[in-house]
C-alpha cells in the first residue's frame, strides 16, 4: 500500500466529524466499519481456515513431527541444521535463485511485448491471443513431462533442428548444465497469465488520453513512454511481485519433469521440491516446515523490498 497514507487514523480527525457523541460513533463506523464489512469474508476465511494451519506449521517447525507419531519439541534444532549442516538446502537455494533470476525477467518481458503487440488492433488479434494463451491452459499436466522430453531429449526436436546445421546437441533435459534452462523455457512458454494481466491493464487506460496526445502531436513512442508505461506501472509491479513469489515457490515443473528427483545431480532441485521430498519422502514434516518458513522469510524480504521501492516508480491514481 502507499506508504504515504497513514493507516492509523486518529479518531475524530475525520473530515466530517460532528461534535455530538452519537455523531462521532457514526463517523467512526462509516470510517472503519465499512472497511471491515467489506473485509469480512476474507477475515472469516483467514481466521477460520488459514491462520490455524499456518500457525500449526510454524509450531511444527520446532518439532520433529514425522507425519504419524506425535511430535516432540526440538527447539531450534531444525533451523540450526538448515543453516549449518544441510548441503541440499544450499543446492536448492542456488537452483531456486537461478530460476527466479532467469525465468521472471524473460517471462515478464515476453508477456509485456506480446501484450503491447496484441493491443494494437491488428488483424486476427483474437486468434493470436488464444494461441499464445493455449500453452498456459495445460498448467502442470502430466502430459508436459512427455512433451518436454520430445523437445529437449537427446533425439528430441531441438537436436533434430540443430543437426540440420551440423551441430550435435546434448540431451538438454537430462544434462546438469542445461536442465534448469529447459524449465526456464517451460516457464516462459507459459507466459499467458502475465500477458492477460498486462492486456487488462492496457485496456484500462482511457483512450482519450491517447487522442489528446495525438492531437498534441506526440509520437507513438512518446505516447508509450509518457502514457502507457506510467499508467501500467501498478500492473507491472503486480506481475513482477507475483511472478517472483510464484517462481520462488515453483514446484510442479520440476516435480513433473525430473520425476520428483530434482535431478540430474540436483540441478533442478527447486526449494519446494526439496521441501516436498523431506516432508513426504523422508517423513520429516517438522524439518520441512522449518524449510518452508525460511522460504517465507526470503520471499517476505523480497516483497517488502519491492513495496518499499515501489513508491519511486509505481504510479497510482489515488
Amino acid at each position, binding site marked *: *500500500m502507499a506508504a504515504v497514507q497513514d*493507516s492509523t*487514523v486518529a479518531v475524530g480527525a475525520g473530515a466530517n466529524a460532528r461534535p455530538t457523541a452519537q455523531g462521532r460513533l457514526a463517523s467512526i463506523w462509516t470510517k*472503519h466499519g*465499512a*472497511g471491515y464489512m*467489506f*473485509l469480512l*469474508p476474507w477475515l472469516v*476465511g*483467514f481466521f*477460520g*481456515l488459514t491462520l490455524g494451519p*499456518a500457525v500449526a506449521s510454524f509450531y511444527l517447525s520446532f518439532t520433529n513431527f514425522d*507425519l504419524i507419531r506425535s511430535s516432540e519439541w526440538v527447539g531450534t534444532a531444525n533451523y540450526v541444521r538448515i543453516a549449518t549442516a544441510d548441503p541440499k538446502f544450499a543446492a536448492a537455494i542456488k537452483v531456486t535463485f537461478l530460476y527466479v533470476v532467469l525465468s521472471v525477467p524473460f517471462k515478464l518481458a515476453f508477456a509485456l511485448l506480446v501484450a503491447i*503487440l496484441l493491443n494494437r488492433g*491488428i*488483424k486476427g488479434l*483474437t486468434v*493470436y491471443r*488464444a494461441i499464445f494463451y*493455449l500453452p498456459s*491452459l495445460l*498448467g502442470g*499436466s*502430466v502430459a508436459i513431462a*512427455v*512433451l*518436454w522430453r*520430445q523437445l529437449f531429449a537427446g*533425439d528430441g*526436436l531441438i537436436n533434430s533442428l540443430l543437426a540440420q546445421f551440423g551441430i550435435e546437441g546434448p540431451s538438454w533435459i537430462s544434462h546438469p548444465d542445461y536442465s534448469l534452462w529447459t524449465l526456464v523455457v517451460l516457464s516462459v512458454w507459459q507466459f499467458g497469465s502475465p500477458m492477460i494481466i498486462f*492486456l487488462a*491493464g492496457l*485496456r484500462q487506460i482511457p*483512450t*482519450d488520453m491517447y487522442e*489528446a496526445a495525438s492531437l*498534441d*502531436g*506526440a*509520437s507513438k513512442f512518446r505516447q508509450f513512454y509518457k502514457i502507457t508505461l506510467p499508467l501500467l506501472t*501498478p*500492473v507491472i*509491479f*503486480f506481475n513482477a511481485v*507475483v511472478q517472483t513469489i510464484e517462481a*520462488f515457490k515453483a514446484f510442479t515443473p520440476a516435480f513433473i519433469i525430473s520425476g520428483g528427483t530434482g535431478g540430474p545431480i540436483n540441478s533442478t532441485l527447486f526449494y*519446494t521440491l526439496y*521441501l516436498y521430498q523431506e*516432508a513426504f519422502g523422508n517423513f520429516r*514434516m517438522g524439518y520441512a*516446515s522449518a524449510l518452508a518458513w525460511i522460504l*517465507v522469510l526470503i520471499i*517476505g524480504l523480497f*516483497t517488502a523490498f519491492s513495496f518499499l521501492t515501489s513508491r519511486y516508480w509505481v*504510479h*497510482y*491514481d*489515488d
Partner: protein
Amino acid sequence: MTDATMSTGTAPPPATIGRRGPLASLLVHTALIAASIAMLYPLLWMVSASVRPEDEIFSSTSLWPSAVDISSYIRGWFGLDVSFGRFFWNSLVIAVLTVIGNVIACSLAAYAFARLRFAGRNFWFAIMLGTLMIPYHVTLIPQYVLFLDLGWVNTILPLVVPKFLASDAFFIFLMVQFFRGIPRELDEAAMMDGCGPWRIYWKIMLPLSLPVLATAAIFSFIWTWDDFFGPLIYLNDMNTYTIQLGLRTFVDSSSTSDWGGLFAMSTLSLVPVFFFFLFFQRLLIEGIATTGMKR
C-alpha cells in the same frame, strides 16, 4: 505522486496519424506466426500422439501420425470405472463455483484495501500478502485435519468454500492494483451525490473493472481445472474425481501406463477451458474504452 498527464507545453508539430505500411504489417504477422508455431508445436504433437497407434507414440517427433486411430479416445473415455464425462462434470462444478467465489469475495476485500480507510488496513494487507508466500505442502496436513473435523473430506467443500472466503490472495492483490487505477474523482463525485461505499463498489468499481474481473474469472477457472494436489488429497472416491485426477490414473510409473488414453483425454480436457477463455476474453476487450465519466 507523479502526474502522468502529458505536459502539452512543448508539443511537436502534429504527425499524420496513418495506418502502418503493408511491409511493417507483414513483418509483424510473420513474427507472430513464427512465434505461434513455436508455441503450438508441443500441443500439436500431443494431439497427433492421441491419434497414433500406441507403439508409435514415443518413436517419432514428426507431427503426422502414420495412421489415424481414434481408439485412444474411446478407451480413455470409457476405460476407467467411471466415464470421463463424470470427471468433466465434477471439474466444471468446482471450477464454476470457484469463479463465482473468487470474483465476489476477492473483489469485496480488494475494494476495502484499495479504497476504504480503516484502522489496521496496512497490517491486514501485509498478512494477506503473507498468505501468498507459504508453500502449501506444509499447511496441507493441518488443513486436512481441520476439514476432516468439519466432515468435509471427500466432498468438494474444501476446494470451494475457501474461495468464497477470499482465500486466493493472488486475486485480491490483482484487483487492488486495478481498483487503484480507477480515478478517485469518480468516487468523490458519487459521494457528493450521497452514495455509500456499497453503491460505489457496485456502481463504479465493478463496472469499471470488467477487464480485471474477467481476468480473475479466466484464471480461477483454468487454475482450478488444472489443479491436482487439492483434489488428490480431498477427493477419494472415483465418482468425485476431477479431470486431472482422471488423467493421472492413466499413468503408473511402477507398471503399465496408458499414454494414448492420457494424450487423448488431455486434448479433450483443453476444450472446455479454451472455450471458457474465448468467451471471457471478450469482456477483456470490452473494458473501458473511455474514462467512464459518461455513466
